[in-house]
C-alpha cells in the first residue's frame, strides 16, 4: 500500500522527471487497499480495491512489475534479482515489503481450512472454502433441502480478528472469536471498553471467548480438514473453518539477507529519515523498524513514503512520530481509540461515561488538571472521536464531560475550533489548515472538491464528518453562503421542501410558493417560480400522489418532456417509448410497434434500456400514435420522466441453463410495481438470474441478483459520466422481503435526495453512508419504515397509465396541437433525409442544398424497402 503512495508522491513532486521508478510486486495485481479488504466480500471484484488513480501506472516514468517477487539484493553492485533470475540495477532502493500474517506455533495450524487474513488471495480462498463447505453441507430431506450451519472461529480478538469475524458472518458462517487477552482489542482499549464492545459484538451474532489459549487444532476424522479447537482450559469448539488473526511479522527477509540490521522484533531498522544503515537503501511502511518498533497502520507508512520522496528530492523531512488512533470499520459497531487510551501517563485523570445496557462506553484521558486531552476510548458511540482526536495534546474548552454525554443530554459540547496543524485525516496526513486552505486559497466550494484537492477522507472515510464541518465553517467565514437553496424562489433544499409539502399537506404550486417561497431582492412577491423549482415541486407532488401530472395547475409545472409525455428531440419532434416490462414483448406487440412506426414514418431503434424507441413524432401526432399503442395494450414507458425507466432483465431460470431464479418474472413484477413512480432523478433497475450477471444489474440504481436461496439486492449503481457499481444492501431475501426492501430504499431516496441527484451520489452523501441507509430500512433505526411502506402502497394503488388518461380527457388532449390556430398543420420547417433505410433530421446544409424532404401530414415511406449495405 505505501509503495503506491510513494510512487504517487514522487510523481507529483518530481516535476523535473529526475527519477524513474520501478515497482516490484509479489502479488499479481496493482497495489490495492488492504484496509478495505473486507469490502471484497461485498464488491467481489478485486479491481474495486485498487488504490489511487490507475493512470499512475501508465506514467512513462513508472514501471510496475506484477507477480515479480524480489529474491535478493546485492548492495555492493546495487542490483536486485527477481524470481525469474532477472537482475535490475538501482540508484536507490526502497523496501516496502509490509508484513505477513503471523502464524502462532499451535499444532495443526497447517490443516486445510485454517486461513490468515492479509491479502486478496487469502480472502478469496476463505470465501471459496466457506462456499464449498456450504455446498457439502446441503442435505436433501423429505421436507426439502437443509443446510448445515458452517462453524467458524477466529483466533485473535484484536482489530483484525473482529474484522475477520464480521467477514465470516457476512459469508453466512457462524463466528466465535477466541481472545487470549482479558478483553477484545486489548491493545487499543481498556477493560471497560472491552466489556462494552463484547456486548455489541455479541449483538451482531458473534460469540466471544476471552482469556482463552488455543492448545491444538485437530483434524476432522473423515475429511482431514480442521474440525475442532482444543483450549488450554480443557474447553473445545467444533469448527469448519478457522481464521488466525494474531498479529503480523514484518517481511524483513530481504534486509536480513542483505546484512542490514533488523529490530528486536523484526523489521529493517531505519533512522528518522527512513534510511537503513546503507545510505542507498530505505524502508517504509510496516517493514520499517522506526524508533525501535514496526507500526501496523497505513497512515504512518504513508508519512514515511512522503519523507523518503522528500529526501530523494533533496529535502530535509523527518518522520514526526506515529498517530496510532484507530477506528473499527466493522459495520454497525462504533469503536475508536486514540492517544493514551490506557491512561498510562503519570497522574492522568480518567473520565468515563458508560451505559452498559446500550453497550456504550466512553472515556477521556486528561492531564492531572483535567484540561489537556491525552487520549480517549469510544465504544458504541464514536461521534466525539472525529472532533476530539485532532485535539490530542491541546486544552479542551469548557467541561470535558460535555463531550461524553449523549447528544441532547446536558448543555452540549462546546464547538471546537481546531488549530491549523491539527491532523484531521490521518490516512492522508491532511491538517485542518490544509482543508481551510483548500477552501480559502484553492476555491473549493464543497466537500467533494476539498476531497479531490487535499485527498482528505479518500481512504477510510472516518474523518469525513470533520472534513465536512471544517469546509462548511470555512465557507461561511469567507462569506460564501453554504446554501442548499433550490433557487431564488425557495430557500429550502429539495429534501426539506419535500417534508414541508408532505407535512403541510399542500397540493398546488400556488399554495406552496405562498407558504414556503421567498421574496427575491427587488421583487414584491415570491414570483411564479422557474424552470428549477417548478419541475421539482411537480416531482414532489407526483411522488406524494397528486393525481395525473397534467391535471389542473400542476400541468404548468411540468418539464417540457413531461408536459408532452414524450422526449423532445433536437428538431422539436418527439420520441415515443412504450413500456416493455422487463424487456419482455410478444411477437404481436412487436408487430404493432413496427406497424405504428411504419404508418407514421418514425425512425426506430432498440434503446439501451431493452425496449423500442420511435423517433420523429410531431406533437400533433402523439395522441394518434398513442391511441394505437394503448389499444394494443401498451402503456407509457416514462422515458421522459424523472421516474422509473426500465427494469432490465436477463433470461433467467426459465430458459437459461445456469439461471437459479426467474429473473424476467421478477423484473416484470418490479417494473409493474414501480412504473410511474416519480423521483428526484430517473430510476433504473436490473435483475439477473444468477451471479453471471447478464442483466448488468450492478450498474443500476437497484440491482437484484438471484442466489440459490433468493435474491441479493445491490443499490446505488450508476452509468453516465461517473459510473459506479451498486453495493450490496442485503442478501438472500425472499421475493416478499425483496419488494419490501426496495420499496423502502426507493421511498427513502425520494424523500431525502437532492434535486437531480442519482442514487449513487445520494448513497455516498447520506449521513453515515450505506450502513446508515441499511439501518434505516432493514432495522428501522429511524422508526419510519411503516410510513415508507404506506407511501409505496399508495403509489402502487394509485398508478394509472398517463397516456390512457390523456386520451380519455378532451381537455388534456387539446394541448397536443401543433399551432393554436392550426392544430393539425405540421411545423413547416421540419426536414428529413433518408439514411440506412430510415429517416433522420436534415442538417442545415442539406436543407440549404434542397435535398431534404419536409415532414408530411400522413404516413411516409422514406426510402425503398431494401436496406443500404455498407462495406
Amino acid at each position, binding site marked *: 500500500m505505501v509503495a503506491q503512495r510513494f510512487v504517487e508522491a514522487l510523481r507529483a513532486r518530481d516535476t523535473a522527471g529526475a527519477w524513474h521508478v520501478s515497482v516490484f510486486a509479489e502479488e499479481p495485481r496493482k497495489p490495492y487497499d488492504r484496509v478495505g479488504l473486507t469490502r471484497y466480500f461485498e464488491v467481489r471484484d478485486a479491481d474495486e480495491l485498487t488504490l489511487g488513480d490507475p493512470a499512475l501506472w501508465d506514467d512513462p516514468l513508472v514501471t510496475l512489475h506484477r507477480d515479480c517477487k524480489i529474491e535478493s539484493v546485492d548492495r555492493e553492485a546495487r542490483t536486485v534479482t527477481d524470481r525469474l533470475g532477472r537482475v535490475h540495477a538501482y540508484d536507490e532502493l526502497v523496501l516496502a515489503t509490509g508484513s505477513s500474517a503471523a502464524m502462532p506455533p499451535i499444532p495443526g495450524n497447517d490443516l486445510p481450512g485454517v486461513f490468515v487474513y492479509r491479502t486478496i488471495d487469502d480472502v478469496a480462498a476463505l470465501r471459496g472454502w466457506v462456499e464449498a463447505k456450504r455446498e457439502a453441507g446441503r442435505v436433501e430431506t423429505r421436507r426439502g433441502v437443509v443446510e448445515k450451519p458452517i462453524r467458524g472461529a477466529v483466533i485473535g480478538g484484536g482489530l483484525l480478528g473482529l474484522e475477520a469475524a464480521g467477514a465470516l458472518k457476512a459469508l453466512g458462517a457462524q463466528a466465535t472469536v477466541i481472545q487470549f487477552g482479558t478483553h477484545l482489542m486489548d491493545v487499543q482499549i481498556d477493560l471497560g471498553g472491552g466489556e462494552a464492545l463484547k456486548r455489541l459484538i455479541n449483538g451482531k451474532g458473534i460469540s466471544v471467548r476471552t482469556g482463552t489459549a488455543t492448545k491444538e487444532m485437530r483434524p476432522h476424522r473423515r475429511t482431514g480438514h480442521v474440525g475442532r479447537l482444543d483450549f488450554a482450559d480443557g474447553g473445545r469448539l467444533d469448527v469448519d473453518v478457522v481464521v488466525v488473526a494474531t498479529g503480523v511479522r514484518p517481511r524483513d527477509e530481504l534486509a536480513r539477507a542483505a546484512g542490514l540490521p533488523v529490530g528486536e522484533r523484526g523489521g529493517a531498522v531505519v533512522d528518522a529519515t527512513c534510511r537503513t544503515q546503507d545510505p542507498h537503501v530505505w524502508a517504509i511502511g510496516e517493514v520499517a523498524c522506526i524508533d525501535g518498533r514496526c507500526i501496523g497502520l497505513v497512515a504512518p507508512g504513508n508519512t514515511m513514503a512522503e519523507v523518503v520522496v522528500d529526501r530523494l528530492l533533496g529535502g530535509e523531512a523527518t518522520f514526526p512520530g506515529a498517530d496510532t488512533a484507530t477506528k473499527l470499520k466493522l459495520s454497525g459497531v462504533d469503536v475508536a481509540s486514540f492517544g493514551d487510551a490506557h491512561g498510562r501517563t503519570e497522574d492522568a485523570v480518567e473520565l468515563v461515561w458508560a451505559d452498559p445496557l446500550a453497550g456504550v462506553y466512553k472515556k477521556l484521558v486528561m492531564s492531572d488538571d483535567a484540561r489537556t486531552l491525552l487520549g480517549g476510548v469510544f465504544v458504541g458511540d464514536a461521534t466525539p472521536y472525529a472532533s476530539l482526536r485532532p485535539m490530542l495534546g491541546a486544552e479542551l474548552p469548557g467541561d470535558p464531560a460535555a463531550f461524553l454525554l449523549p447528544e441532547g443530554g446536558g448543555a452540549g459540547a462546546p464547538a471546537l475550533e481546531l488549530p491549523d496543524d491539527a491532523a484531521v485525516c490521518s490516512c492522508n496526513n491532511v491538517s485542518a489548515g490544509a482543508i481551510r486552505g483548500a477552501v480559502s486559497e484553492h476555491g473549493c466550494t464543497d466537500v467533494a472538491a476539498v476531497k479531490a484537492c487535499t485527498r482528505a477522507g479518500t481512504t477510510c472515510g472516518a474523518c469525513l464528518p470533520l472534513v465536512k464541518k471544517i469546509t462548511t465553517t470555512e465557507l461561511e467565514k469567507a462569506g460564501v453562503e453554504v446554501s442548499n437553496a433550490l433557487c*431564488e*424562489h425557495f430557500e429550502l433544499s429539495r429534501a426539506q421542501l419535500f417534508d414541508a409539502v408532505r407535512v403541510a399537506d399542500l397540493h398546488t404550486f400556488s399554495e406552496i410558493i405562498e407558504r414556503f417561497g421567498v421574496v*427575491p*431582492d*427587488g*421583487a*414584491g*412577491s415570491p*414570483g*411564479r*417560480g*422557474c*424552470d428549477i*423549482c*417548478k*419541475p421539482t415541486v411537480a416531482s414532489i407532488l407526483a411522488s406524494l400522489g397528486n393525481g395525473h401530472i397534467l391535471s389542473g395547475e400542476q*400541468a*404548468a*409545472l411540468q*418539464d*417540457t418532456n413531461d*408536459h*408532452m409525455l414524450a422526449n*423532445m428531440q*433536437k*428538431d*422539436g419532434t418527439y420520441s415515443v417509448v412504450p413500456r416493455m416490462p422487463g424487456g419482455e414483448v410478444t411477437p404481436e406487440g412487436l408487430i404493432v410497434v413496427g406497424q405504428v412506426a411504419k404508418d407514421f414514418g418514425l425512425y426506430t431503434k432498440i434503446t439501451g434500456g431493452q425496449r423500442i424507441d420511435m423517433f420523429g413524432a410531431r406533437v400533433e401526432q402523439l395522441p394518434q400514435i398513442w391511441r394505437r399503442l394503448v389499444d394494443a395494450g401498451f402503456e407509457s414507458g416514462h422515458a421522459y420522466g424523472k421516474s422509473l425507466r426500465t427494469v432490465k432483465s436477463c433470461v433467467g431460470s426459465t430458459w437459461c441453463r445456469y439461471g437459479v431464479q426467474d429473473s424476467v418474472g421478477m423484473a416484470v413484477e418490479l417494473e409493474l410495481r414501480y412504473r410511474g413512480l416519480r423521483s428526484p432523478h430517473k430510476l433504473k433497475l436490473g435483475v439477473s438470474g444468477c451471479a453471471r450477471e447478464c442483466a448488468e444489474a450492478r450498474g443500476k440504481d437497484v440491482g437484484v441478483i438471484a442466489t440459490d436461496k433468493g435474491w441479493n439486492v445491490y443499490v446505488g449503481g450508476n452509468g453516465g459520466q461517473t459510473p459506479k457499481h451498486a453495493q450490496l444492501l442485503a442478501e438472500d431475501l425472499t421475493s416478499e422481503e425483496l419488494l419490501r426492501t426496495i420499496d423502502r430504499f426507493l421511498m427513502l431516496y425520494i424523500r431525502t435526495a437532492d434535486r437531480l441527484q442519482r442514487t449513487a451520489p445520494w448513497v455516498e452523501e447520506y449521513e453515515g453512508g450505506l450502513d446508515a441507509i441499511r439501518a434505516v430500512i432493514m432495522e428501522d433505526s429511524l422508526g419510519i419504515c411503516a410510513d415508507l411502506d404506506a407511501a409505496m402502497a399508495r403509489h402502487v394503488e394509485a398508478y394509472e397509465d398517463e397516456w390512457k388518461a390523456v386520451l380519455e380527457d378532451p381537455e388534456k388532449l387539446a*394541448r397536443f396541437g*401543433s*399551432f*393554436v*390556430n*392550426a392544430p393539425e*398543420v405540421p*411545423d*413547416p*420547417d421540419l426536414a428529413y433525409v433518408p439514411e440506412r433505410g430510415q429517416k433522420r433530421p436534415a442538417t*442545415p446544409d442539406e436543407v440549404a442544398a434542397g435535398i431534404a424532404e419536409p415532414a408530411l401530414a400522413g404516413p411516409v415511406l422514406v426510402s425503398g424497402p431494401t436496406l443500404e449495405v455498407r462495406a
Partner: protein
Amino acid sequence: MTTLAPNPAPAPTTWTAVCPLDALVPERGAAALLETPGGAPVQVALFRLLDDEVRAVQQLDPYSGANVMSRGIVGTRGGEPTVAGPVYKQVFALRDGRCLEAGGKTPVDGHGAHLATFPVEVRDGVVHVGLG
C-alpha cells in the same frame, strides 16, 4: 429562416387575430403559425401569464434552431416573467426577449442571442398579434 433581432418592433402595420384568450393555458405557451404582410410564414410563441397578460416571442429557439419556445417553462426572475428554452435551458425575459442566462451556450449559426418580441392585444377575448 431569418435572424430575428431582440427589440420590440415599431408600431405594427397589421394585426392578426390568432385565437380566443381561453385557448391559452395560464403559465404555459402555445405556438401560432402566422404570416407577415409580405406572405412569409412566421411562427410565434404566445404566453398567457397568471394575470392574463399575453406575451409573444419568436417560436424559434436560437440555441437549438428548433421551433420550440412555446414549450418552455414559464416563471419569473426577480419578478420579471420569463421562459426557459426547452432544449438547452436558456432563460429569456418575456417582455423584451432578452436572454438573461445563456448557460455558457452560444446560439446556432445565423441566430442572435435574444428573442424577437411581438406586440399583443387582447380585444373582446381574442388574442391579436402585431406583425410587420
